[in-house]
């Protein structure tokens, strides 16, 4: 009976090969189309950046005549002249100023957010629900509403034209996003090791420093990286609070360079733009893993 059934269909082995080949081809076309789309979009996305880097090595006139990104006569003119800026200060000063903001902010964030996240994730205390709700509320709060009174507060404190307003709030766990991220991360870690430490006689503080922080490291690094990137890009904060040019961070200095004269030297501006972007880019590429893991884990839970 089986033979009878088999002999009815013509050369089953041949059919299989033909169909299998068709399947393979369809699959290959699918993959090829994806690659084309992905590469096309990728190129379109990155071309402005590629062009930016190339343009920083061009002369001013070439920028406006050549849409290709490779400079015909590469020159460091943009960098050299741009570094000197049209102010009494070099871009070096501005970069240093940025560091004066970024470093205290990152450190302050790391310390305060860790402590606060530890509190939320490991302790029960009165008003816990209320405080956690306030954290979520702050996360969603558009801070446009608090900006003006904050300015008035800092004015009354005499902190205008200084870097304090830019990093002190972060030192008080003001960035709810990072607290939230660390709390989520901590919640996923079992308490066993901390409990063992307590049994061994450690205080909560010692447990925090010696047990929790090392466990928290990957998320902490993500937090520091994100804060670093966001602070490097911060513009509105410095715009409101910093008035002396000698205190300008890079973001304000760049704005200054396109404000001053009408016919400014684009290659200089672009060169300085490249320099302004480099720290953020470098940090990103060196620590890529932490970025993408951080954003995925912080984002999915919720």
């Amino acid at each position: 009976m089986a033979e009878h059934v088999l002999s009815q269909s013509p050369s089953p082995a041949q059919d299989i090969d033909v169909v299998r080949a068709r399947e393979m081809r369809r699959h290959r076309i699918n993959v090829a189309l994806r690659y084309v789309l992905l590469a096309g979009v990728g190129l379109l996305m990155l071309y402005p950046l590629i062009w930016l880097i190339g343009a920083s090595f061009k002369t001013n006139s070439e920028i406006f005549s050549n849409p290709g990104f490779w400079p015909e006569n590469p020159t460091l003119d943009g960098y050299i002249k741009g570094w000197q800026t049209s102010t009494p200060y070099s871009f070096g000063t501005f970069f240093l100023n940025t560091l004066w903001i970024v470093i205290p902010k990152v450190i302050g964030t790391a310390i305060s957010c860790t402590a606060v996240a530890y509190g939320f994730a490991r302790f029960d205390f009165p008003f816990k629900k209320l405080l956690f709700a306030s954290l979520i509320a702050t996360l969603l709060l558009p801070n446009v509403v608090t900006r003006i009174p904050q300015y008035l507060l800092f004015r009354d404190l005499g902190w205008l034209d200084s870097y304090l307003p830019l990093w002190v709030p972060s030192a008080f766990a003001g960035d709810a996003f990072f607290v939230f991220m660390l709390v989520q991360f901590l919640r996923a870690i079992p308490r066993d090791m901390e409990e063992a430490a307590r049994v061994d006689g450690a205080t909560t503080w010692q447990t925090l420093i010696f047990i929790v922080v090392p466990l928290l490291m990957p998320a902490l690094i993500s937090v520091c990286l994100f804060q670093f990137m966001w602070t490097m890009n911060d513009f509105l904060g410095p715009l409101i609070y910093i008035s002396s040019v000698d205190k300008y961070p890079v973001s304000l200095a760049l704005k200054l360079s396109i404000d001053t004269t009408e016919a400014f030297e684009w290659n200089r501006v672009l060169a300085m733009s490249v320099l302004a972007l480099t720290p953020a880019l470098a940090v990103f590429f060196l620590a890529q893993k932490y970025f993408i893991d951080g954003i995925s884990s912080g984002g999915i839970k919720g």
Partner: protein
Amino acid sequence: MSGDNRFLGLFYLSPYIIGLLVFTTLPFVASLYLSFTNYNLMNEPIFTGLANYIKLFTSDRTFRKSLWVTLVYVFTTVPLKLAFALFMAVILNYKLKFINVFRTAYYVPSILGGSIAIAVLWRYIFADVGLVNMGLQLVGLEPVNWFGDPTNALFTITLLRLWQFGSAMVIFLAALQSIDRTLYEAAAIDGAGKWTSFVHITLPLITPVIFFNLIMQMVQAFQEFNGPYIITQGGPLKSTYLLPIYIYDEAFKRFDMGYASAIAWVLFVIIMALTLIAFWSSRHWVYYAGDKRS
């Protein structure tokens, strides 16, 4: 744990509590108060009741224009950016080589995009003799007046935001990759084709992420400042004069703190209202896996 002070947790929360009171709650309440006053930093604030709000809604044409522009900006960029991010995430969610390269390539613009450097670059790219026009001429098209034309100017700002779709895409991709493969097998056996599986399995299971991205993107879009400020200075003819810029100008150029606070509160109420609507509607279309946290 036994023996611990009941308030130990509060000790660790103390920086947050202080910060919350001093840097958030106090300013929040103060700004509401300020919105009912006339305050120009010289003298004490003068209580004027609803005067600011009345002026805003009846005689302030700049406000109306600014509000309109902001709403257009938000309601075009947010859906477009999310749709595009989801689309690219779906394309990437396949057994391809170099996925990480592509993912990084799309993500880089979103980490740089908010910076002044990029805004400066954008200003060049869309200049009359800038890169985009050069490119258009190369393929035989007419150069476009980007910054002189109100619609085009808004388009350049929109494009800047869309360019940064990478961060949303990465979150979508992670969500797509976390869906249990056997669900698709079960669906195939139940007779579902590729598209049906996407609509009935994939989409419902990523609704929490869609929701999260929607809220985040919307709140960010409403507060966009750097781009329009640097690239178009809010013009031409206030066609890119987003509300945050208006608030900034009123507060820090004209020092009319009371009025600026009123505008800020209107913006805040709009954002909150939309957020609440989104939350309320989420009960009907967002499905949460795993734990029953609301």
